[in-house]
């Protein structure tokens, strides 16, 4: 699956990264809590969130994520989109709620990111 498939499934608006829609994605994560995202997400994960401040982009930067989807028609500020573009992120806006957006992506074949191993267990590579 590539980001263009997510655009189609959600009928999403592409806010930045139109030229990077062929980037592969393997899983998704849905949260407004960035610490949860930082706990278990890997780079080919899509982050679906309602959090439109700089920390969504910052979290994507820290984890090398390639795609952010803002749910319920939320559009972040221009400074945030400019930073996302600078980092090579694709940013999408879904008019659906987070729940419905996640459901549409799941029905389209995208699956959730793996949960973290128990404390002390080996880390995912």
């Amino acid at each position: 699956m590539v980001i263009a498939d997510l655009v189609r499934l959600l009928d999403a608006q592409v806010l930045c990264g139109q030229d990077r829609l062929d980037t592969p994605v393997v899983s998704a994560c849905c949260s407004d809590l960035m610490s949860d995202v930082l706990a278990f997400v890997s780079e080919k994960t899509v982050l679906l969130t309602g959090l439109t401040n700089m920390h969504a982009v910052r979290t994507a930067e820290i984890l090398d994520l390639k795609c952010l989807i803002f749910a319920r028609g939320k559009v972040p500020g221009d400074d945030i989109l400019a930073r996302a573009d600078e980092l090579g992120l694709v940013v999408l806006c879904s008019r659906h709620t987070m729940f419905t957006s996640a459901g549409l992506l799941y029905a389209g074949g995208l699956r959730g990111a793996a949960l973290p191993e128990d404390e002390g267990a080996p880390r995912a590579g």
Partner: protein
Amino acid sequence: MSAPAFTRGFDIESQDYERAGEASASIKQALRQLGIGADILRRVSVVAYEAEMNLVIHSLGGQLSIRVDPEGIVLTAEDRGPGISDIESAMRAGFSTADDRARDMGFGAGMGLPNMRRNADEFLIESRPGVGTRLEARFHLG
């Protein structure tokens, strides 16, 4: 692998949510330029970001610093207080004393310290109420 000795420090202001994360992004960029591998780069970056957010959310201000030598990477966060009275509780996933502002920013879910410990190869934290907190995360290279 070996990396040249490298140190860098960043002053982190209390409650400065606008700039929060910039130091961690700089650290990530510097480590990438040093040729640090992707897995360790991500783990150090996650710990740096969580530590930086903790300094912003909970401390009176402090410093985030990084040292890289051929043996490994040491990330240190040291603040000027107020200190943690119950470290055992603070290390428990889900425990948080963060306010609504931190939660509005996507933090304060009580995952910061557990995330840091999980991602580091060695993790030390010491705190004195009224004095401050120092945490050190070590990552082995090679």
